[in-house]
């Protein structure tokens, strides 16, 4: 008997790939099943399980915006078994995808607001989805400030996109690299994101902040935002715990009573403050 099988992925084909950095690659994927191409919908911030058959699954956020139909994108960093296998694939190869999972960014709440979007390293991936969503629904959102950082100039993601975004009206892009990571041609800032944030000292004024990046960066950025007077309800971040099922069953990603895969990955700083430090 065939059973409901949420673990069965849909086949997606790699139609394009972009090397963002030495160890970070973006894939553009198209569902094999033509009906799915139209039917598939998701929210910025939601994620999926990407399968390399014979190797396994890995979780990445969908890096493209739901407003851009017909394909999805993911950016992944060379880390373990699955990402290594993904790295060996070529345009035209088939992989599996199941999703979308998780809660996504609260785009309804964000509507009408000024946004401060802070991303470090591969943490820019979910933010790219959100930014593209905002730009595609430009009138729904206020000013968008993007603070993007990486260890070195070579480690910055979405270089082309950043340039395009920065040219849009009401969008400001600030880029920074860690001290020592700059090149002679570098015109951006030099400094760790929390420090740059401190320096910029944005005013809360009803702004919503979305922070995404390595745990240490999030930790210190939240502290700075707190000092700057941002309400924890209006500071939004995403968690990345180890996940297997994506369905709130396998017991791996929970932080206290919360399943990151189901109840997250998007949390407000206020939510996080209520959770045990088990991440």
């Amino acid at each position, binding site marked *: 008997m065939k059973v409901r099988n949420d673990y069965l992925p849909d086949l997606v084909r790699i139609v394009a790939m972009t090397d963002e950095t030495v160890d970070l690659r973006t894939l553009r994927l198209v569902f094999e099943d033509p009906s799915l191409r139209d039917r598939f919908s998701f929210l910025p911030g939601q994620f999926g399980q990407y399968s390399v058959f014979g190797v396994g699954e890995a979780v990445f956020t969908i890096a493209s915006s739901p407003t851009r139909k017909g394909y999805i994108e993911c950016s992944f960093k060379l880390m373990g078994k699955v990402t290594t296998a993904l790295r*060996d*694939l*070529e345009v035209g*190869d088939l992989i599996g995808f199941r999703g979308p999972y998780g809660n996504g960014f609260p785009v309804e709440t964000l509507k009408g607001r000024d946004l401060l979007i802070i991303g470090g390293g591969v943490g820019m991936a979910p933010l790219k989805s959100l930014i593209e969503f905002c730009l595609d629904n430009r009138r729904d959102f206020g000013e968008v400030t993007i603070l993007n950082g990486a260890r070195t100039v070579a480690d910055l993601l979405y270089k082309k996109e950043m340039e395009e975004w920065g040219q849009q009206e009401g969008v400001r892009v600030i880029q920074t690299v860690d001290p020592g990571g700059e090149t002679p041609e570098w015109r951006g800032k030099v400094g760790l994101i929390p420090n740059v944030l401190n320096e910029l000292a944005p005013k809360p004024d009803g702004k919503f902040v979305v922070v995404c990046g390595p745990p240490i960066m999030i930790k210190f950025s939240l502290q700075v935002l707190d000092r700057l007077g941002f309400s924890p309800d209006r500071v939004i971040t995403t968690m990345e715990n180890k996940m297997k099922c994506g369905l709130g069953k396998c017991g791996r990603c929970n932080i206290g009573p919360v399943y990151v895969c189901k109840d997250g990955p998007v949390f407000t700083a206020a939510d996080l403050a209520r959770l045990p430090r088990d991440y």
Partner: protein
Amino acid sequence: MARIGVFVCHCGENIARTVRVKELAQKAAQIPGVVHSEDYIYMCSEPGQKKVRDAIQQKKLTGVVVAACSPQLHELTFRKACQEAGLNPYLCEMANIREQCSWVHTDREKATQKAYEHLRYIVEKVRRNRPLRPIPVPITPRVLVIGGGIAGIQAALDIADGGVPVTLVERQPSIGGNMARLSETFPTLDCAQCILTPKMVSVRQHPNIELLTYSEVEDVKGFVGNFQVTIKKKPRYVDEDLCTGCGDCAPACPSAVPNEFDRNLSWRKAIYIPFPQAVPPVYTLDPQACLNGPKLFPLACERCYQACGPKAINFNDRPKIIERKVGAIIVATGYELLNADYVKELGYGLYPDVMDGLEFERLLSASGPTGGEVVRPSDHKVPKTVVFIQCVGSRNPANGVPYCSRICCMYTAKHALLYKHKVPEGKAFIFYMDIRAGGKGYEEFIQRVMEQERITYIRGAVSKVYGLNGKLMVQGVDTLSGQRLEVAADLVVLATAMVGANSSDLVQKLRLAVDRYGFGQEAHPKLRPVETLSAGIFLAGVAQAPKDIPDTVAQASAAAGKALALVAQKTLEREPTVASVNEFTCVGCFECQKVCPYGAIERKEIRDRAGNLLKVVSTVNTGVCNGCGACVVACRNKSMDLAGFSEEQIFASLAAVTV
């Protein structure tokens, strides 16, 4: 997914006769990851190779599999072709469908299937190959020679003549080694000193040779091409530059001790020169023998100082530490004579007139303690009957060493001959087990001694030597006649076994494998007799195994050639198929280190940012690793892997042949 190209060779009819090559190429095209597949009559021909190059470029291949003959024949050919087309050569491998398939099977069906599975295995392997680059190892153009005997001298001269600087380290005050002790050399009976001394002088004068006598190797670090050597120069208490070797000091010295160069058959002073032709020709003050005591303080006697014209004596001399970087090392540490209990049973050490071969050499030598006159040490009388005993300790696994010392038959014959020449009326008896005279002119020499010199050869063993009424009674058995016999001798000369003089200390510093008799282990007993298991370290002379002077000199030149060939390159390119360690998962049990025959595995400390030691892990010195993979198997949690034969490759290969 990978983009593999498969090229099936017909080898004329050699493969195509048995294997359906067209079918093979078609089936190969269906293997996941294969994007190009073709067959051709002679893949190794230039048009064949061009097919490979073109496909690499046109189809952007990430791997190449050539199904043809044995990789031993053409892997290099095809790898070169790949490299020319811009593909890393290590992404190309061969499936051997000729030697191991078409030539050994007749059933076309089964041979084709086998060829297909074999091809598929290589495809799976190549899919998981990583581009590798040869490991460059820079080479320091200097060679260290340890030991200044004839082997070390010859090696140093050859290398220096080749234009490469040499540091020659000798433990004793003078170079020359054991050969300097010899009287005349078999089978031609040239005087040892006469042929050795010019070489010793050349060593001293050669601009490319740095001679460090009275020095010892303290420490050796690094690896092939890059050894860092620390040498300790012991204090001579005589300034080598000021000393003219005039010898005025020695007569002034009131303290005399046995002269070790003469095997204690004569005396020397506390300030001495080992022998008149010593190189360097300078004196050495032996603090152990000096009246001032080993610390030369407080000074009670300064007579040598007073006698020394150039004021070369310096009581405050201190050891000097000399550091040298060298690219290769030649170990020419020579031999010692065995001092086993068995030797004592024959009266050695008990009766002064039982001596070993080297002592007898000194007696025979014109520069020896008696000026070449053969007299008994006990009473300085000329011995009328001399018994020579061969194989003392040699070929005697129970009480000595199991091997043949190789030179005793020859030198004993020489001893007997020289004795007979000096004491024509004397009687010489030789006890032997077999006569081994396997060298150019050796058998003739033995025959001459036996036939012309009226020396009595007795095939048999000696059980005991004891003193009776001023004579040495030699008890033995003539195994040819089965008779027990006893000879009353005036002098007994033992041809004692040779053992390697590699001190365990030095061996450890060099990470050198030696057998239990002190002989260095060569990398291959037949094909690489000069190399050791440690790349860049070579053996010369008796340090490797007992041998005579011509063999020693030949091997020394061979070692010099090897060392020269090594340092002649600016950098050394080593095969990149070496082991590597995953430091994250390594638990530091060092099982790998225990099984590595090359000492390529080192310990590495992993510390956190604060400097706290987190763990100690293994790390592979790629300059030393030979890629055998023993460590990978020994590693229980597979923190090790071997490039070119990785775990992933082997597992995938297995899946492909067993399906």
